[in-house]
């Protein structure tokens, strides 16, 4: 059916809607990476000696490591000396104390993205810790959260105000030398979020951070740490988008989650960074290390992600289930179109007894997009009666895209029960015709079918986020209707 094929193409040609640049003067360290640069970053942030030493050790480790090359990516070598490792909005001293004081231009940027902070706060009761470039410029609801002993602040603030917590947990889930990009992040990380939920506290609102890469040529190295004490609960939302520009921007974040006995952490991401143009030019390089540790018994960590952006994605949010009866979950929708390349998946490491994990991965490839699902399920000898369910579905739109699935199993305990399902489908022209024969326009049919395909993941997202994610998917895959 050529008409449908044509529509699919029109759908996937949607321009990048979040492409605009904000002009805010920057205070930046000149490009280049060496121990002096790291000392400068640490000094600018007024960090304690132990943290500087930790950074330096990570840097020295990094120097001995080489960039991973096993993944399904093709890109020109990254010149790490051409990157500036620190940028902050200029008026650092008089950072706004409330949302009202935010630079109108920044606010406007958020408004253009359809995420007005005010509305978000009022309507959804979401606390927003907006990271603009590398330094937080807005934090809200802090007082309200503080009443319950919840700490929700930027990593820089946490280093100043809660150094003992940072020192106790930083790098415990993802060691500084875990991998090439994690080591780089450990050496030069600038900011990110810090969350601490005390014993028995159920965080009363979804914590949300909008990241936005905004300084040309500035690698972004966020560092996020979330700690959920015994019997606590938190849901954290991360959403991001970036302005259109030509240079490739490196992004190597590290996110560590720690859940103690009976604690639950739900981490949701909607990622919409600039994917590059139709020729594959520009776009964000997204090399992220995300891992959660179910340290306590009966703890639970779930990752839910909707990824539509970035030129290159290298990302495997993982869960280490150390506590008995702990649960790890990974729900993912990834879209690759244009010349986007994504090598993504998860690792579920079962160590405790009776641990359970669920993997639901939905990959959509369009145009010349290439996508790999790479998943590891490891059952340690100590993990009696572990169970895993994996489901990896791929949907292809057009004939030049690709989807590949590499499930790895490493089972060292015979009591384990593993179940794996995988499907690859072309978006059915018969499905599209069926919708049209009921009066539904071709464009609407495609988004209906795609949203149906992703349903199992969307329903894991918090309500408002799910609506946003659905919209994002629609504008990503749709040409303007009508």
């Amino acid at each position, binding site marked *: *059916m050529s*008409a449908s094929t044509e529509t699919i193409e029109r759908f996937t040609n949607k321009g990048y809607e979040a492409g605009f640049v904000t002009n805010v003067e920057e205070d930046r360290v000149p490009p280049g990476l060496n121990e002096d640069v790291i000392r400068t970053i640490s000094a600018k942030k007024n960090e304690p000696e132990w943290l500087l030493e930790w950074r330096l050790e990570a840097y020295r480790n990094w120097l001995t490591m080489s960039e991973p090359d096993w993944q399904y990516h093709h890109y020109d070598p990254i010149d790490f000396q051409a990157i500036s490792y620190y940028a902050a909005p200029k008026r650092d001293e008089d950072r706004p104390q409330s949302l009202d004081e935010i630079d109108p231009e920044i606010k406007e940027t958020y408004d253009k993205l359809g995420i007005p902070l005010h509305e978000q706060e009022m309507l959804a009761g979401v606390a927003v810790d907006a990271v603009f470039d590398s330094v937080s410029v807005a934090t809200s609801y802090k007082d309200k959260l503080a009443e319950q002993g919840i700490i929700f602040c930027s990593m820089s603030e946490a280093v100043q105000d809660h150094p003992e917590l940072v020192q106790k947990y930083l790098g415990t889930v993802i060691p500084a030398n875990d991998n090439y990009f994690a080591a780089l992040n450990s050496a030069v990380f600038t900011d990110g979020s810090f969350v601490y939920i005390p014993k028995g506290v159920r965080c009363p609102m979804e914590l949300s951070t909008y990241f936005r890469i905004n300084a040309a040529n500035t690698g972004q190295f966020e560092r996020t740490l979330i700690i959920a004490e015994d019997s606590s609960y938190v849901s954290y939302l991360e959403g991001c988008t970036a302005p259109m520009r030509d240079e490739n921007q490196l992004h190597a974040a590290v996110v560590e989650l720690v859940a103690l006995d009976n604690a639950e952490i739900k981490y949701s991401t909607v990622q919409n960074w600039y994917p590059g143009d139709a020729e594959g030019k520009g776009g964000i390089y997204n090399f992220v290390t995300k891992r959660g540790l179910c340290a306590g018994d009966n703890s639970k960590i779930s990752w839910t992600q909707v990824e539509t952006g970035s030129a290159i994605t290298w990302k495997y949010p993982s869960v280490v289930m150390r506590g008995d009866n702990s649960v790890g979950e990974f729900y993912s929708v990834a879209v690759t179109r244009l010349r986007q390349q994504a090598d993504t998946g998860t690792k579920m490491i079962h160590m405790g007894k009776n641990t359970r994990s669920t993997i639901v991965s939905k990959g959509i490839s369009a145009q010349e997009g290439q996508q790999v699902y790479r998943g590891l399920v490891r059952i340690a000898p100590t993990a009696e009666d572990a169970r895993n369910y994996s489901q990896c579905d791929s949907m292809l739109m057009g004939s030049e895209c690709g989807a590949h699935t590499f499930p790895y199993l490493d089972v060292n305990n015979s009591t384990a029960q593993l179940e794996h399902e995988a499907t690859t489908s072309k978006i059915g022209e*018969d499905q599209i015709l*069926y919708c049209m*024969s009921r009066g539904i*326009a*071709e464009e609407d049919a495609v988004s209906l079918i795609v*949203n149906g395909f*992703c*349903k199992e993941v969307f329903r894991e997202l918090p309500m408002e986020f799910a609506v946003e994610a659905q919209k994002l998917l629609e504008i990503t895959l749709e040409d303007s209707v009508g």
Partner: protein
Amino acid sequence: MALLEIRNLHVNVEGAEILKGLDLTIEPGKVHAIMGPNGGGKSTLAKALVGDDAYEITEGEVLFKGEDLLEMDPEERARVGVFLGFQYPVEIPGVSNTYFLKAAVNAIRKHRGEGEIDAMEFLELVKERAKRVKLDEGLLQRPVNEGFSGGEKKRNEIFHMSVLEPQLGILDETDSGLDIDALRIVSDGVNAMRDESRSFLVITHYQRLLDYIVPDVVHVLLDGRIVKTGGKELAKELESKGYEGYNEDAA
């Protein structure tokens, strides 16, 4: 004016000519049945009428209420009142039957310049129509056709039709796969919709269905052409004699 007028329709599929000059006129309020051997082109006719572009029209014309149907996109044809109950309804995972129908109803309303249907009104409509064809209410919330039994899929097609209320209902072997009770229920659903302006084109292999949905006209479609047209007694004749005698006629 005829509701549907097909003149000298030629349709190619994958380069092969399947319909070879088909003529068919359906007046408002009439039920036409099409019978004929496997591979004769019955589904091809149905697919060509809804606008599946795997079916290439090489010659001929089709007028629906006097307008050129072949010029319209498939969704437009649905909006002006053409409905096809598919021989093999497809599954749409993750999209609830109700949600799907609501999208369809609203698309049709929009085409007519009407606003979106009120949520409560829609719910009542859907429940009432589901009851009419005895469609299990559980199937309303399930993804479209996913995991439906063969009979449930067919019943769901009739359910869709009774919600969308088309001018012309084309039913492609809606009776196959139905048990006796279901056959009666589905037929009752169709009969309830019969009126002086609405017409049906019923494709079937079995005279049995036509005992319930009594046709005004019966056609035999064979090798891409209508080779015989008669009244409801023609179906009975075919049931006992088969298509043997027509082969030579067509050749």
